[in-house]
C-alpha cells in the first residue's frame, strides 16, 4: 500500500465536513472513497470550494475540526490510496 496522501487547503477559509449543519458528514475516517469524491468544503467569501480526493482509497484521518478556520496550505485530511 502506498503512503498516505495529505490533502491541503488551497485557500483560507472555514473547513466544513457537512454540506449543511443538519446533514451527515461527507465522509468518516475509515470510509472508502473514489477519486473525485467530495470529502469536505472550504467556505470563503460566501462561496464554497469542494475538497475532493484525487485517488481511490480510504480516509485515514481528519486533521482539522469541523467549522475551524484554515489557512492555504494547511493539511486537512489524509487518504491511504488503494
Amino acid at each position, binding site marked *: 500500500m502506498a503512503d498516505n496522501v495529505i490533502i491541503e487547503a488551497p*485557500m483560507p*477559509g*472555514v473547513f466544513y465536513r457537512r454540506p449543511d449543519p443538519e446533514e451527515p458528514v461527507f465522509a468518516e475516517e475509515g470510509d472508502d472513497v473514489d477519486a473525485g469524491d467530495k470529502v469536505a468544503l472550504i467556505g*470563503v*467569501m*460566501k*462561496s464554497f470550494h469542494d475538497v475532493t480526493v484525487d485517488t481511490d482509497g480510504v480516509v485515514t484521518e481528519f486533521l482539522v475540526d469541523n467549522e475551524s*478556520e484554515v489557512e*492555504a496550505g494547511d493539511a486537512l485530511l489524509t487518504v491511504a490510496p488503494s
Partner: protein
Amino acid sequence: MLRIKEGGLSTTVQDTGRFGNYHIGMPPSGAVDQYAHRIANFLVGNEADAATLEMTYSGPTLEFEEDALIAVCGADMSPSLDGEAVSTWTAIGVDAGQSLEFQFATEGARAYLAVAGGVDVEQVMESRATYTLIGIGGYEGRTLEAGDELPVGEPAADAQEGATVDDDVVPDYGSEDTIRVVMGLCDYRLTDEGRDVLLGTQWKISDEADRVGYRLDADVDIQDLFEEREQPFGAGTDPTNVVDLGYPIGSIQMAGQPIVLMRDAVTGGGYATVGTVVSPDRGTLAQGRSHETVTFESVSVDEALTIRESWNDQLDALREELLG
C-alpha cells in the same frame, strides 16, 4: 467566444461599473480592484471600461474558440495555456482551441483576465458589470459555470503580443496592510477612545469578506466605541444606529463589526458609517485574503484627493504607454 469548462470559486464579468443609479439603490458593481482590471485591459489594447473576468481565489478553466490576445493581472494564480506556464501582467497570444487554466491564488485574492476586444456580453444600464445579488449584468447576472459561452468584442487593430509593464507597477499583495480612510460621515458618534481603537486595532479580514462588504473581526465591542446618547426619532435603538443616510462606497459601516462596503453593497441605511476608504485603497483591500489583517490610517480629504490624483496619473501614464 470563450467557453467556460470550469467556473472557479467565484468568477464574474466586471468592468468600471454601472454609474448614475445610486439614488435608486443601485450600487456600481464593477471590478473591485480597478487597478489590476484597468492594466489588464491596457495590455491587450482595450480601454479601461472593457469587461474582464474577475476571478476569486481559484480561476476558471476556459477554452478559446478563436485566436486571442489576453492578459492576466492581479492576484498570482499561475495561469497556464495547454499546460505551459504563461507570464502575468503581459499580453499573451492564444491560438484557437487552446485552454487556459489557473491554480489557486498564492498572493492576493482576485485576478483579472482581459481579452482584446473585451468580454462582449450585453450591457444592462450601460454596463457589463455583474451584480449577482439581484442577478443583472455580466453573464445571466451570475457567477460563471461550466458550459457558459462568452462573446468577445472586436480587438483594437494594433494590440501587441508581449506588451508588459515594469516590475514596480506590480503590487506586492502580501505586504500592504495599511488602508487609508477619511473619517466621517458619522465619526462624531465615536468617543475619542473609540476613534483610537478603530484606528489602532489590527482588523482581521473575516471569511465572509466579499464583493458586497469586507467584514472585519477583532476582540472589540463595537458599541463601546460609541458615545452614549438618547437615540433621536427615526434612528434604531442600538448606539450604532443613526437616522438613515446614504452610505458612501468604501464606507466603514459599524454593524456589530466594521464592514467596509464594497462595490456591490447596499447604498444606504441606518448604521453609522464612521470612515470611508480612499478609492485606490479599496482595490488594495479587495486583494486582502481572509484572515489577513489590515489597519486603518486616517487621512484628510485633501490627502485623499492627492492619493486619488496620483493613482489616476499613474494609470493615465500606463494607458498612454500601452495604447498610445
